[in-house]
């Protein structure tokens, strides 16, 4: 009958209207500024740098300025300048540190590749998303000091991942300490300067962005 389909449709909307007063499945609005956004643990927005100690954030950055993330960052939003000197890291090993570490959040695409490639668990993804600014040059370019957040914060936003990272790091550090101890013992036994230092990781593949066109090799070219 003409109109039956329309009546059925009216029935469905009426059901939704009535349901919006008693059925939580039909009233799904979350009043955002009043009730904060529910973010899953895995949520990623912008990266931050993990520091070991909240009181001395710049002294205890995990980052050793290896520049892997800078190279892998797809939109090239990370800028790192290595330090000239070395500072001891959590295990007391002298390491480079980033003299300049800048992330342009106006460019960052939140892809998490920097986190995935970081061998030092130094850079992680943050949950903060309320970052609207009125000036993009000053408000959205984050420097080292703005990026550094303590490990406790990391635990707070991502308990599972942070616990796993901490467990791994502790194990690594213990192993390194034992190795150093053994090396020291060996050194004491026979003076031989071998302290295996992980040091700066290998710089990865050749620069991913060639300045000039490369001639093709192989491929389907004859």
């Amino acid at each position, binding site marked *: 009958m003409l109109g039956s389909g329309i009546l059925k449709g009216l029935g469905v909307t009426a059901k939704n209207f009535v349901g919006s007063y008693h059925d939580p499945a039909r009233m*799904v609005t979350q009043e955002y500024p009043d009730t904060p956004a529910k973010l899953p643990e895995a949520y990623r927005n912008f990266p931050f740098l993990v520091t070991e100690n909240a009181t001395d954030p710049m002294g205890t950055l995990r980052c050793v300025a290896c520049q892997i993330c800078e190279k892998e960052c797809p*939109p090239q939003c990370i800028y790192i300048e290595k330090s000239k000197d070395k500072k001891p890291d959590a295990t007391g090993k002298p390491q480079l540190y980033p003299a300049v570490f800048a992330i342009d959040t106006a460019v960052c695409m939140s892809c998490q590749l920097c986190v995935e490639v970081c061998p030092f668990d130094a850079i992680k993804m943050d949950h903060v*998303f309320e970052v*609207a600014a*009125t000036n*993009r040059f000053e*408000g959205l370019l984050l420097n080292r000091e703005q990026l550094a957040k303590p490990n406790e*914060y990391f635990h*707070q936003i991502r308990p599972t991942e942070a616990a796993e990272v901490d467990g791994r790091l502790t194990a690594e550090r213990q192993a390194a300490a034992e190795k150093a101890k053994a090396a020291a013992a060996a050194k004491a036994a026979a003076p031989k300067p071998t302290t295996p230092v992980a040091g700066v990781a290998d710089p990865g593949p050749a620069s991913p962005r060639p300045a000039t066109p490369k001639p093709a090799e192989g491929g389907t070219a004859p």
Partner: protein
Amino acid sequence: MSDTPAPPPFTPFPAAGNISDAEREDLRRHGILLTSLEELYGWGRSNSIWPLQFGLACCAIEMIAAATARFDIARFGAEIFRPSPRQADLMIVSGTVTKKMAPQVVRLWNQMPEPKYCIAMGACAISGGPFKQGYNVLKGIDRFIPVDIYIPGCPPRPEALLHGLTQLQEKIRAERVSGPQAARHLQPDAASEFPVPDYGAHDLQPPSNPALFTAPVLPRKA
């Protein structure tokens, strides 16, 4: 490590366009009547921000999501997405502005009646974002039109857009009707229309509006 007390709150991003209560009180002293009218004027406009129905790319989907049941931008009185620029108050540049699209965006902006506001939503609208190295991608819409609020993210969550909207509401409420703090559209020499770039042989002509866009100079090692 996880049993340490909660870390101090971090505010990595400078507050955007907020007006403190003290400032508000100070402004109130200028005159009760004028301030009352200002307050009414600001209240009316800030609660009736009708965005232009204008989606560019990925962020447009999140913009639509912000208008859907879960986030419901209607709570702020801003769900009336007007398809005609003549009735819009806010242009949400939601997505990559390509050079082919830029003249249209500027034209739309020129067609909007004052007072009008612009939110650059997402990395692409702010700076070209991940696509900034593309030959057809405009590195930020602020090269051609003035932007009030920048919302970084790729794409920003719908809540981030709502946050940006509340920032804009704050900004509108803080606007004065006269004096140096007067709203942009009330300043006698403020431009309302901006030159529309032409399609050139290699790039847009001009590639940016020099009256509007001056990037700070970066002192960097060459």
